[in-house]
């Protein structure tokens, strides 16, 4: 957990009163909607199909039980009793009234939660590994550096009106759970051969209508220089990024047009001027931030407790296999809570569920929770002996579906159900797929398979990097869907390849079933993942299977 101090609290209060003033001026007609737009966006407020949408940040995906309870309170008091967890460690509320937004913000600010820079053309909420600080293999806790950058980018006077939004993600593990290769800046924490801490810097990744995998522009930036290096990247982008066409304004286009080498050189030249400035990070600053992350007082516990040996309920065993991951401390585990029940919209949680999960995290996880980009929650500090009891409690509130990373653990954007930009529905497709693959034995036999759905080319559902990607487009007034396969968002990130012509809404689930059947017939071994089979064989055999009968 990270503790805000008096300084941070003062800042948040100042922010809320500024927004209150902006809303009042908008309601009084002193601000046009156009003028208000960029102000509300910087506070996470979108105008959607039915109402204002409010996107609240969950910095580096870490939450306290108290904060989650407050999110439940906001869902209940200002919205329709639920919230939606997104792919960028945010929660969204879809039905908030403008006049009540400042109050909702004030309620959140009391527990150190805010919506600053969750939208708008600024540096967004910095995201990282949802298992940061508890996973066995990390170089160090990436949240410390996410917090360094969160502070540095918060209301940055130079970079609050960039050509386009700007997203930074950080990982510190071999296995990248933060999708750093599809971010504007991706940072991988590592140590050089002298043992010094630093970052590999990738730039220009992103999805949307022109997807790119990020390119390494600097193999090692010493940790003390990371702020000045990021400032150099932002400054080059702010001056030279395109502003004539919103679809060409992301940094990925600048990097692509200049070439990564030329872009890196520009950054290097800028960086040389500022690296020894006030931006140099001193140890005292990092130590201070590190000291405000508290870690639980773990007990010495058995890694193979009797409670686990005795638990023979096959449903529990299925969940244990699927949703429980190794922890850095013996005797503890990381538990993922699936927000993907059969037939439900991915990523939604009701206020009652949030309250119950908050209580369970107090009881079983030292009051701490995590939110990951797969739209699931996690309890990061569960004693293994408590797993059976925790499972019963989670099962009761519907968040123990053992489908983490399986074909029904679908990432989907809001699509036509909420989003004003949508061409097609995404949530109902996700719901249908969860029904088709509801049989747990089938799904676990298929193994790890990420399905991602976006309702338009903006790619909020990350369809390009889904093992199977589904993109809704509009053709002659009809919703049709393009299907890609072979994408992935981890350390081996790749963009999926289109398998052929778009298919109709009613056919999507059948097509996905065909692709999965083809995979089961083609895989070399039961543990060859879907993406690896696609990599080995290419899209042809899948294409044949899908279009042979259509």
């Amino acid at each position, binding site marked *: 957990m990270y503790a805000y101090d008096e300084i941070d609290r003062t*800042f948040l209060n100042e922010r809320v009163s500024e927004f209150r003033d902006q809303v009042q001026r908008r309601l009084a007609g002193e601000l046009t909607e156009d003028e208000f737009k960029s*102000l509300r966006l910087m506070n996470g407020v979108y105008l959607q199909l039915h109402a204002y949408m409010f996107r609240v940040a969950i910095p580096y995906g870490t939450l306290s039980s108290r904060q989650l309870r407050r999110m439940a309170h906001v869902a209940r008091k200002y919205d329709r009793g639920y919230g939606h967890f997104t792919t960028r460690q945010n929660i969204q509320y879809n039905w908030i009234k403008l006049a009540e937004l400042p109050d909702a913000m004030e309620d959140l600010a009391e527990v150190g939660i805010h919506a600053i820079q969750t939208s708008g*053309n600024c540096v967004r909420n910095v995201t990282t590994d949802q298992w940061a600080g508890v996973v066995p293999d990390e170089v160090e806790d990436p949240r410390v550096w996410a917090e360094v950058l969160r*502070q540095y980018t918060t209301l940055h006077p130079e970079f609050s009106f960039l050509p386009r939004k700007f997203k930074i993600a950080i990982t510190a593990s071999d296995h990248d759970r933060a999708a750093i290769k599809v971010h504007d800046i991706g940072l991988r924490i590592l140590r050089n051969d002298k043992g010094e801490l630093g970052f590999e810097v990738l730039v220009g990744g992103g999805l949307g209508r022109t997807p790119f995998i990020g390119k390494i522009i600097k193999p090692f930036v010493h940790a003390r220089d990371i702020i000045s290096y990021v400032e150099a990247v932002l400054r080059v982008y702010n001056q030279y990024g395109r*502003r004539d066409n919103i679809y060409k304004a992301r940094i990925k286009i600048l990097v692509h047009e200049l070439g990564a080498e030329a872009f890196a050189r520009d950054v290097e030249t800028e960086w040389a001027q500022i690296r020894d400035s006030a931006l140099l990070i001193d140890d005292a600053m990092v130590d201070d931030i590190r000291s405000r992350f508290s870690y639980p007082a773990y007990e010495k516990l058995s890694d193979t407790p009797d409670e686990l040996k005795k638990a023979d309920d096959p449903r529990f065993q299925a969940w244990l296999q699927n949703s429980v991951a190794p922890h850095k401390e013996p005797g503890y585990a990381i538990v993922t809570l699936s927000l993907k029940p059969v037939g439900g919209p991915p990523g939604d949680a009701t206020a009652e569920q949030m309250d119950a999960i908050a209580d369970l995290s107090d009881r079983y996880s030292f009051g701490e929770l995590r939110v990951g980009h797969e739209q699931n929650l996690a309890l990061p500090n569960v004693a293994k002996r408590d797993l059976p009891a925790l499972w019963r409690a989670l099962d009761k509130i519907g968040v123990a579906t053992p489908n983490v990373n399986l074909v029904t653990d679908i990432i989907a954007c809001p699509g036509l159900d909420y989003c004003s930009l949508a061409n097609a529905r995404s949530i109902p497709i996700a719901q249908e797929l969860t029904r088709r693959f509801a049989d747990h034995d089938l799904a676990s036999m298929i193994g790890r398979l990420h399905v991602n759905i976006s309702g338009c080319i903006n790619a909020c559902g990350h369809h390009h990097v889904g093992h199977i990607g589904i993109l809704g487009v509009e053709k002659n007034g009809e919703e049709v869907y393009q299907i890609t396969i072979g994408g992935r968002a981890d350390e081996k990130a790749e963009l999926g390849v289109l398998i052929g012509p778009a298919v109709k809404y009613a056919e999507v689930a059948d097509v996905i079933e065909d692709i999965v059947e083809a995979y089961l017939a083609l895989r070399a071994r039961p543990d060859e993942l879907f993406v690896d089979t696609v990599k080995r064989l290419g899209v042809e055999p899948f294409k044949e299977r899908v279009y042979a009968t259509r």
Partner: protein
Amino acid sequence: MPLVKNTTIVADEFVRVADEDSIPDGPVLLPAARFLVDPDGVLKRNAKVGVIWPNNKPIAELAPYLDRLAAIALVFPTFRDGRGYSQARLLRERFGFRGELRAIGQVLRDQFVFMLRAGFDAFEVKKDSDAAAFADVAKRYSVFYQPTGDGRATATRQRLSHPAEAARS
């Protein structure tokens, strides 16, 4: 459009000269193209000279003249176009410009704090009500998370110098 300096509305001493006009006596603000025809010539006048610099022209081109320029006006064609902030910081922090740094164009209340931090000290504000509110708006924030050339102490510095006041929650 009201001009704000030192948080109060003041009269503008500069006369803005269009490309085709002749240059009058007294302080003038010239468009970049006009200025660049004969910079050394205009800078020899014995009244103040300022230049209006577009946001897509490298600010380094002004470096040879900075010690003789009384004012530079940077342009915000819309409030969404933030190139002027980078230009302002470079002028102040890299090139050491000490004259008047003026924000012109779509300058609205909610940019004041950012502009002050980037080094602007004069503001042609679009709306009268925003100009009137300048002093209050400028005080909106007492906490700043990143260092710029404006010298305000950052949150980190505040914390490290007064650890007791920043009591943990």
